[in-house]
């Protein structure tokens, strides 16, 4: 007689439970406190920047910030963030984008704080374009040029100007919004399509759809995109400037997810994850992020 005491195996699978405490690691960085109005109210700014060559042979993107280390300087003069994506072979793209960035920061130092900023930013872009056109066209070089996006933060407002297909985004309350207009042929074709003059197919497959319709280095500078009255910043607004190497290689959801972190860690992770994807012909990628709180 067997005494079979088989313990009935508990064959039902253990239901997975949500663990009691989950910590989403948030990487943070120290911020810098800045006075934003005449009463002495303060806000905290955090900055980040990152760049990678992608799979290109040279880095033709350039970028820079005005002084972001001294709280006094920022309170007095605001911050300028500039990014330029150079194009054109034989390193002219790099020369132009580098010149554009340093010229912009130089001109920021002579901003007149009693005059309107949108006009000053626009004039700055036109002046840079004239200087570059003179130097580069004079030597018979052409086809060289650069995009230019600049964001200017002063007190509680944010002003921007843009030429070309680099982008400025604002991340507000979890929503990502592109603030400037792409100056590329695709945009024009899409407008034509919406007016009924063309088809979506033509727009999507046109050979020159990625060609720029406005850029620094073009004598005429057909379009300058800028905001006319300044955008009032809200708590935890995040402004992003990036070249097409970034926005063509990452999904918006991943982008937003990374940007929930502080700027410097966020940009480093974004660049890292794009580089990891090893996209063929990956363009130069540059990204700058400013968080306001």
């Amino acid at each position, binding site marked *: 007689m067997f005494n079979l005491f088989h313990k009935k195996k508990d064959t039902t699978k253990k239901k997975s439970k949500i663990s009691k405490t989950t910590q989403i690691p948030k990487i943070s960085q120290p911020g810098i406190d800045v006075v934003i109005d005449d009463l002495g109210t303060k806000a905290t700014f955090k*900055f980040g920047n990152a760049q990678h060559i992608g799979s290109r042979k040279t880095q033709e993107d350039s970028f820079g910030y005005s002084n972001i280390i001294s709280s006094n300087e920022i309170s007095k003069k605001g911050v300028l963030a500039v990014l330029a994506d150079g194009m054109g072979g034989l390193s002219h793209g790099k020369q132009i984008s580098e010149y554009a*960035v340093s010229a912009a920061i130089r001109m920021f130092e002579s901003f007149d704080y009693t005059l309107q900023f949108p006009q000053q930013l626009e004039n700055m872009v036109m002046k840079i374009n004239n200087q570059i056109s003179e130097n580069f066209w004079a030597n018979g070089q052409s086809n060289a040029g650069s995009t230019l996006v600049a964001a200017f933060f002063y007190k509680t407002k944010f002003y921007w100007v843009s030429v070309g297909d680099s982008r400025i985004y604002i991340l507000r309350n979890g929503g990502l919004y592109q603030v400037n207009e792409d100056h590329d042929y695709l945009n024009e074709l899409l407008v034509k399509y919406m007016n009924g003059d063309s088809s979506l197919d033509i727009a999507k497959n046109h050979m020159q759809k990625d060609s720029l319709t406005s850029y620094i280095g073009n004598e005429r500078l057909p379009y300058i*995109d800028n905001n006319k009255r300044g955008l009032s910043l809200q708590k935890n607004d995040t402004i992003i400037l990036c070249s097409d190497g970034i926005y063509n290689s990452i999904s918006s959801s991943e982008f937003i997810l990374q940007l929930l972190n502080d700027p410097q860690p966020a940009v480093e992770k974004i660049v890292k994850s794009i580089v990891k994807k090893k996209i063929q012909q990956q363009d130069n990628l540059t990204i700058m992020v400013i968080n306001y709180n």
Partner: protein
Amino acid sequence: MEMKQCTSGHFYDQSKNPQCPYCSGGSDIGVTRPLGNESGMYKTAQVSYAEAPAFPKTAPINSAMLYRDNIPPTMPLNSPETNKTVALQVNEQGIDPVRGWLVCVNGKKKGRDFRIHSEKNFIGRSNSNDICIDFDETISREGGAIVTYDVRSNKFWIQSGDGKSNIYLNNNIVLVPLELNNNDVLTVGQTELMFMSFCNSSFKW
């Protein structure tokens, strides 16, 4: 992390990099790989650097010309709305010169002057306005009044904005655009502003 800024304006972590990693042109960041020769890919139309002159992906619109030496100056794309934003009357330094002034003769900040530039000058309480009267609570933030200088006729005009409150010119209500003359007094909210022109019959830029 120990963030520092280099002379070019780059922000970098000094605890990770003794010198700015972006200043070498960013070429040190990432592996430099020779370009492939896929001109068939629509993502880029880049030709290998070793051979023909580079044809960049983002190229000006009329670059049907592939060879550097034959490139005529790039013509901008012909489109109906050229020159979206053009600045009028800008001098060498890119500054729109002063055209006239509004001086506060009655109100909290009596004595304060405001510059009038060309075209429309928006008056209101918020600092996005050209003429910001931030000391008068009875003035609306936006859409207060508009002083405009017309370059062609060398004249100044006042008109009411989109806000609720009325404005007065020499104590008469402004309902249609009226021409401004020297020593006219504008009443906006509880502030009185006297107008003085710089550009007038005796002077013009």
